[in-house]
Structures are given as C-alpha cells and as structure tokens.
C-alpha cells in the first residue's frame, strides 16, 4: 500500500513540475534574476610549457572556464573588495611589473596604510606550494582571505564583500553564468579569483626557450651568468621556476621597523625565525624592489648583499657559512654583471603584455 502511495506522489510531483512550463503562471516571481539561457561557457585550456613541472593546483577541482576567468578578472580589478571601494587586488599587483607594485617599498593599502611586506609577483601560481612570503596560506583558493581582511591591505570582511556583490546589478548574473546556477557565494568568489590567477603562466622567456631547445642562443655573458647561477644560486633558486619551495634565512639584517619574524609567525617554531620563501626569479628584472620588505632597489644591490651584506644569526642558511668562518657568497664584479645578464633572460614579455590579464 505504502509503495502505491509513493508512486502516486511521484507522479503528482512530475505533473506539478511540468506545469512550470505551460507559461501561464510565469512572471510571478519578481525578484528572480533572469539568467540568459544558453550562455556558452567554454573550458579554458591551461597551457603548461613543456619545460614546466606538473601543476600543484588541482585543476580538476576548479577547471577554468571562459566565464569563470572573466569573473575572476573583474573581481581582481574591482575596488569593491576593499572597505574604501578603491583598493583592488590589481592596485598592488600591476601586470607590467609582473603583478607587483613598485612605487612603494612595502605595499600600500586602504587610506594609504602601509603594509610590512613587498607585494609578490603573481605568476605561475598553479605551480607554487605555499603562498605569501611566509607560506601563511597553504592553498591558493584561500589566499585572498588575507589581503581582503588585512587591516593595512583591503581592510574588509568576506561577508561584506559578498553583500556588496549580491547587491550589485551585474555580479549575480556573472556568477550564474560562470557557475551554471544562481548564487553569489564565497566559494565561487575564491574559485573565480583562482581561475584568473592560475591562468597566469609566465613560461616564454629566453631562458624557457633555451630550456626547451628552441632556437635561441645565450650571449657569452648570459651563458657565463647561467653557470655561476648553477653553481651559487640554484641550490635554493632551483629548477625551471628558480625555487625549491623551501623557507630559508638568506642573512638579511633585521629591519627594526618591522622586525619581521618570517615563517615563525606561521609555525611558531623558533627554528623558522627570519625564514622566508625562496622566491622564483622569473621576471625579476621587472619586480624591483627586492626581498620580502623591498629593501633593495636593484639587482646589483641584491648581489652586493649576497657578497658583503649578510648578517649572522642562528637560523642563517648553512650554505652561506664558509669553511673559514666568514659568511656570504664570493662573486667577483665581472661575475655579478654576468649573473645580471642571465637574470634578465628570465623576463617573459609575452606574459607582461598579455591582454587576457590586463585591466583595460
């Protein structure tokens, strides 16, 4: 008997549903946002250069689509994500400087508040392991929580951002187009931002072409610089992306103004004191100032630091301790020029000028 009733009820339910389509009663729900039907939303192809490692980002969880990417880009360049309405992600991450900011040393946020760290380049994020200088975010999808809520960055709350997006006349439609159903949710916002950011692949520099065996030749200086780099830098700035993804103390004197303890803030462990993520050096010629607090203006300053500016501390990386008790690397002036020539081969102009990522 019960089964019977159940079958009837399913039947009734189907009838109930199908009467949706008879058109007679539509136009009732006023506050229903119309989603234009049949908006095509093609999957985008994340092209991985053949000399690159496998992505660390699980693309199957959030495959970039045309509409998702566009939404992510709009969010990235929208000041609505900040409390004052004017600071967007793109304010601190400017494409032509490989998405860094260099009119200021450390970053500037809402109301001109000054952060304590130098904005990092955004590139090859699908291949990174931890995010921020100290690895404070383990996943790219959660990283934007930090800038959005940080007092000296965007100083906003996630709930408030969502409210503003929900009230906007365009976003609800764009969210629906990107994700197939209605709903402005935090998950979708983070997914869209990630879709935009993981597409930022910088992999067409002279160095890449050289690695892939394409027809480029290094000049004598570039080639000499490359072998010095192999010998003195690549133990940390390793591989195609010039990072082994580890956290290390490279001997920067502590800046008393910020007294940045680095990785220790995340782990609480004294052995991580003053350790920072080994950064990729891609596009390094465009991302000055250098180091986590932007203390060096030029690559030459960086190299002079590696030879003459290092200070000792318990967590200083062992590679910088020499047998004779001194610290630092030994690099001649000529070698420094050669290293810089090599570092400039890491610039990917196609990426810096790629219209897909540009604000306008």
């Amino acid at each position: 008997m019960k089964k019977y009733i159940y079958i009837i009820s399913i039947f009734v339910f189907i009838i109930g549903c199908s009467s949706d389509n008879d058109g007679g009663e539509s136009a009732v729900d006023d506050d229903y946002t119309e989603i234009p039907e049949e908006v095509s939303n093609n999957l985008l192809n994340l092209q991985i250069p053949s000399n690159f490692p496998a992505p660390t980002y699980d693309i199957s969880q959030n495959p970039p689509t045309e509409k998702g990417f566009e939404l992510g880009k709009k969010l990235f360049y929208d000041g609505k994500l900040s409390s004052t309405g004017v600071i967007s992600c793109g304010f601190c991450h400017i494409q032509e400087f490989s998405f860094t900011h260099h009119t200021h040393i450390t970053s500037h946020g809402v109301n001109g508040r000054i952060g304590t760290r130098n904005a990092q380049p955004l590139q090859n994020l699908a291949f990174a392991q931890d995010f921020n200088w100290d690895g404070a975010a383990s996943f790219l999808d959660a990283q934007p929580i930090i800038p959005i809520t940080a007092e000296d960055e965007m100083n906003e709350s996630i709930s408030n951002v969502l409210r503003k997006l929900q009230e906007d006349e365009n976003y609800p439609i764009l969210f629906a187009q990107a994700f197939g159903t209605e709903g402005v949710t935090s998950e979708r916002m983070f997914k869209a931002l990630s879709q935009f950011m993981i597409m930022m692949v910088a992999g067409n520099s002279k160095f890449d072409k050289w690695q892939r065996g394409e027809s480029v030749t290094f000049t004598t200086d570039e080639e000499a610089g490359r072998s010095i780099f192999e010998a003195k830098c690549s133990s940390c700035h390793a591989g195609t992306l010039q990072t082994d993804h580890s956290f290390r103390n490279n001997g920067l004197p502590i800046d008393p103004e910020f007294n940045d303890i680095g990785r220790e803030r995340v782990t609480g462990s004294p052995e991580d004191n003053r350790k920072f993520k080994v950064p990729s050096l891609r596009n390094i010629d465009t991302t000055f100032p250098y180091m986590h607090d932007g203390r060096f203006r030029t690559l030459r300053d960086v190299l002079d630091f590696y030879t003459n500016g290092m200070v000792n501390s318990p967590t200083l990386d062992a590679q910088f301790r020499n047998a004779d008790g001194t610290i630092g690397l030994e690099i001649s002036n000529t070698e420094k020029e050669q290293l810089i020539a090599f570092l400039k081969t890491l610039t990917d102009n196609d990426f810096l000028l790629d219209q897909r990522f540009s604000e306008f």
Partner: protein
Amino acid sequence: MKKICLLILSTCILLSCDSDDNTNREPGSLELRFENKIGSENLILGTPFTNSSNEQYVVNELKYIISNITLTRKDGSQFIYPVADSYAVVNEEESSSKMITLTNIDAGTYDRITFGFGVDPTKYPIESGTLNFVPTAEEAGMLWSWSAGYKFIKMEGTYTPENGTESNDFVIHVGSHGANLDNYKEIELAIGEDIKINSATASSKIISFDVSQVFNGANTIRLEDKADIQVDPINAPKIAQNIQAAFSIN
C-alpha cells in the same frame, strides 16, 4: 493547479509517514546538542572554576569548530554527512549555535558518531567545502586573517595562579599551523544506546564537552607557565590532544 498538486503531494508524504513501522526507510534527522561542562557541572561564563594546577580560571568566551560528521551503523557501514554542510561554530554564548540539526540522514540504526574538531587542513579547500564556511568562521572571529587558517578553538578568560591574588588574562587559540603542524582531531564516540533514524522518529543526542580537560587531560596545561597560547607548536598539540578526549555522548 501547481498549488493543488503540491497539496496532494504533501498529503501523500504525510500519509506515507503516518503508516510508519519498523520498516520505515525514509531519511530522518538528528539533533545534536552540545553542552559545555566543567566536570559534571555546567560551564557558566564569568564564573570561577579550579584546574588541577590549583589555578582559578574564569572563561569569558568559548567557541570551537565542529566538522566532518559521520554516523556508523552496527555493521560498520557509514553515513557521511555532506561535508560542506557539516561545518559549525559552537559558541557557548549563543544557544542556537549549540544545537546542530542534521537532516536527510539515511534511515538506519546507528551506534557510533564521528566528527572533527577544527577543519581538516590536509583536504583541498574546494573538495572539503570549507570555502563557504569562511564568512561564518569570520563572523565568529574564528579566522586567523593573516594566515587564511582557522582557530579551531577560541577560549579566553582570566586566571589567578596558585597562591596568587592577582588575576591575569589567558588566551587559547588553537588551529593548524600552515601545512606544518596539523592540530585537527577526529573524535569518535560510541553511542550508548543505538539511535534509530528515519522520517518518523525525531532523534536527539547530547554531546558534552568537558572544558576542564583542556587543562587537565593527558597533558597538564598550567596557565602560569604560559597564558597566551596561539600558534604555539608545543602547547597547541597538547591542548588538541586533551580536547580530543574531552567529548562524550549521552
């Protein structure tokens, strides 16, 4: 027309519920009520209690995150509650937050419940559905905004050391430390008498959290030694271990 159909439909469902017996296979719900205790007494915010180090402590704020709820049947088969819907902040100050209603649970007789303390940091955030929990956690003050990580427990108050007269503040914020140290704990509780779940029975269980065990569990935490425990690789894992054993069900 549609309305009438719906009416018939709901009548049908009601009828089918009415005719329930032991063979009801319709999904049901379970209400979990969290009670924060000090031993066998109820925790009262702002009221002094004493820990095993003879320190008098007053809890002014207590919040923790519950996640990943799974129910296990006698035969070992499991019902995994939709993970994205399983995140909740239990806040001592807000009685509605202490009542977690799980709906649409497969019918069956269950004898064990498993849940997480905190947010599993090893799981990919999209896969584990935590990204939609961000606003809730944020509003409850359970986000470490500088690290995009969660405070699994936020317990704050004051304490007076043994033989002391002055009271000092204490702060306990335990979470995972990036990918470095995982303080997420899974808690499995045997349900004394089995719970039968189907559409006809309204089941409810009380889960007690003995707050005193934060200090006096397998590890002793003496506030006089350290009263500000945040991103603390030594004390945070000890507290997480204490908390894992501090839940019980009746």
